[in-house]
């Protein structure tokens, strides 16, 4: 109980409903007492400022977007009283936000660590790092057995082509995570899956070509393995699947955050990057996402956004979605997320394999080959081709096998098949790569589901926000423009703001 309330027991302090004219301090609109369709008004502080609740909530939201301004978000600009914000904030949302913050923090650590690593190691170190990462990632993705067959565990026997392509794996993985507007994950998937056809080691290129020949001579007699789909088919279909999935995800996200369907044709995917290492505003990941997708604009990107708005009409939310803020944490999340992908794929692939022991259907889908094919490994290892390249190798292998030389047309046909289906060792091996690919897809879907749920919960929280209303205790009713006259409580009352 405040002193003001105690001194005037006959009538409580006037409230916002007793004002004759209400003036919103945010939008400056006035509303007469008894307006036909009154908006929700609040008086959340200890002075005379009042506002539409919607306006004030929007201000709080926009102020909370920036770390420097957020200190003023819940403070009355006139009397400095703190607004009391009430909202439905379920434990699961708090958990998700905490998780998100944790990941961001981990992202910051990854950024700091990798920056330190880059500074400390020289270019050669970076190169070695990339190459060994590429090797390890490849081993994870293709399976140890196949990796050992193609590359061997001894880096000394790797050819220059291997040394050239391995470092490109992490680079392409990272590039694929940058939303550059193209379905760029095609690049790493191609890089990983081309190993089905290309065996850059000189030693294994011999075996491969040897394999090709057997394969080519056997091929017309044996039916093509329709399942799992060939890597080339996947690389070709990937952009389509990718863009369909993304379109679906964007529409779902739009539906969840905006509560209505998005137009079928979304504006082209233009990306801009804002480098903001100094100020990391990611206090509430998902909430900020919703905020930028909503009406409130971020001041930093305002000008560009305006230009863009003029270009594509409305839908500033979409434009905001396409502006990427690069902060220390987000960079770390990006790098860490990219590099951990092969491991996630392998973990999920293994999980799928485990599950497939119980499900026959899953086993068929994964095309698990429990028993390792002998043929793939029984090629006479130990030969090294002297010269002649792939064509020469094919011809020499043909001679050795006692088969007619395939000629140029035949060689081309063999090469084409090689590129389309992979070589025999690939086809006959247990398709670890396939279940890893499916596993990665599963992971991406799971991750996106969690993201959408997070967005949805955060949106529910935003929508359930209310500001606690207070009466005008402590303010002389004479200062207020009231509908009905109010007994004056005298001037000896000290202002006692309620807590």
């Amino acid at each position, binding site marked *: 109980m405040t002193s003001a309330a105690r001194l005037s027991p006959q009538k409580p302090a006037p409230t916002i409903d007793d004002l004759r004219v209400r003036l919103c301090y*945010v*939008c*400056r*609109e006035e509303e007469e007492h008894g307006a036909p369709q009154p908006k929700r008004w609040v008086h959340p502080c200890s002075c005379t400022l009042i506002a539409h609740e919607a306006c004030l909530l929007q201000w709080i939201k926009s102020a909370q977007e920036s770390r420097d*301004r957020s200190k*003023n978000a819940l403070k009355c*600009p006139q009397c400095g009283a703190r607004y009391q914000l009430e909202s439905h904030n379920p434990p699961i949302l708090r958990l998700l936000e905490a998780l998100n913050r944790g990941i961001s923090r981990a992202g910051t650590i990854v950024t700091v660590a990798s920056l330190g690593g880059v500074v400390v190691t020289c270019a050669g170190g970076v190169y070695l790092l990339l190459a060994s990462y590429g090797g390890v990632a490849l081993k994870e993705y293709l399976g140890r057995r196949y990796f050992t067959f193609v590359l061997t565990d001894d880096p000394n026997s790797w050819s220059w082509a291997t040394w050239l392509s391995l470092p490109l794996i992490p680079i392409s993985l990272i590039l694929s995570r940058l939303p550059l507007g193209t379905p760029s994950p095609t690049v790493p998937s191609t890089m990983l899956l081309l190993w089905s056809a290309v065996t850059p080691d000189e030693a294994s290129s011999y075996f491969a070509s040897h394999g090709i020949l057997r394969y080519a001579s056997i091929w017309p007699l044996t039916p093509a393995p329709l399942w799992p789909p060939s890597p080339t088919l996947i690389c070709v279909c990937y952009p389509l699947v990718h863009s369909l999935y993304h379109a679906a995800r964007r529409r779902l996200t739009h539906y969840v955050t905006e509560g209505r369907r998005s137009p079928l044709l979304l504006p082209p995917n233009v990306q801009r990057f804002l480098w903001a290492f*100094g100020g990391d505003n990611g206090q509430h990941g998902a909430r900020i996402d919703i905020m930028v997708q909503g009406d409130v604009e971020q001041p*930093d990107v*305002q000008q560009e956004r305006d230009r863009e708005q003029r270009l594509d009409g409305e839908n500033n939310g979409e434009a905001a979605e396409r502006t990427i803020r690069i902060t220390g944490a987000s960079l770390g999340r990006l790098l860490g997320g990219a590099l951990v992908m092969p491991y996630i794929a392998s973990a999920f692939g293994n999980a799928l394999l485990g599950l497939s022991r119980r499900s026959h259907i899953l086993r068929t889908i994964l095309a698990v080959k429990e028993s390792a094919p002998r043929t793939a490994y029984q090629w006479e290892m130990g030969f090294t081709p002297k010269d002649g390249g792939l064509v020469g190798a094919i011809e020499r292998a043909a001679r050795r096998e006692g088969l007619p030389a395939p000629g140029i047309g035949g060689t081309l046909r063999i090469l084409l098949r090689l590129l389309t289906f992979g070589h025999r060792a690939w086809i006959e091996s247990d398709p670890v790569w396939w279940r890893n690919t499916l596993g990665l897809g599963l992971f991406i879907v799971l991750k996106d589901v969690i993201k959408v749920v997070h967005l949805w919960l955060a949106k529910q929280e935003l929508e359930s926000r209310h500001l606690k209303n207070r009466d005008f205790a402590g303010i002389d009713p004479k200062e207020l423009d009231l509908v009905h006259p109010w007994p004056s409580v005298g001037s000896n009352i000290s202002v006692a703001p309620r807590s």
Partner: protein
Amino acid sequence: MSSVYMRRLGKELMDIQCDGLPEGVRLLSADNMQSWFFTIQVLGQSLYEGEVFALEFRFDNSYPFSAPAVLFVKDRTYAPPIHPHVYSNGHICASILGDDWSPSLSVTAVCITLQSMLASCKEKKLPPGNDTYVRTAPDNPKKTRFVYEDDTCDPLLCVS
């Protein structure tokens, strides 16, 4: 919400036309809802006695949820005041135009604050690092992140 922005600016313009502006401030032009121009001079005794400056307010549809971009005009007729918080390109380092902005402030309130900022000036000098800032400054002063301290200004150019 652009509708809030239009309604609120319309209201402010109406108030200016009905109730007038504080002494020393005059409306030069408010032809559209993107930029308004005012002239401003310091009344009474001050270092800027007799000088007239022009202020430009740039609004976008985040107004009043974020501050308008306010700068002193620099052209043939007007020059920015020499003041430790005003860069020679007209950019102003004032916390109410950045982190301390609140929708309870208005165009008139900003004018009054800037007037008193000029009036209380003790020494006509440019902010430290003026040349460097002016060389690299973005067109829109809101893209500069200023660090607000009592006496000095420190622009952090982090967003471009």
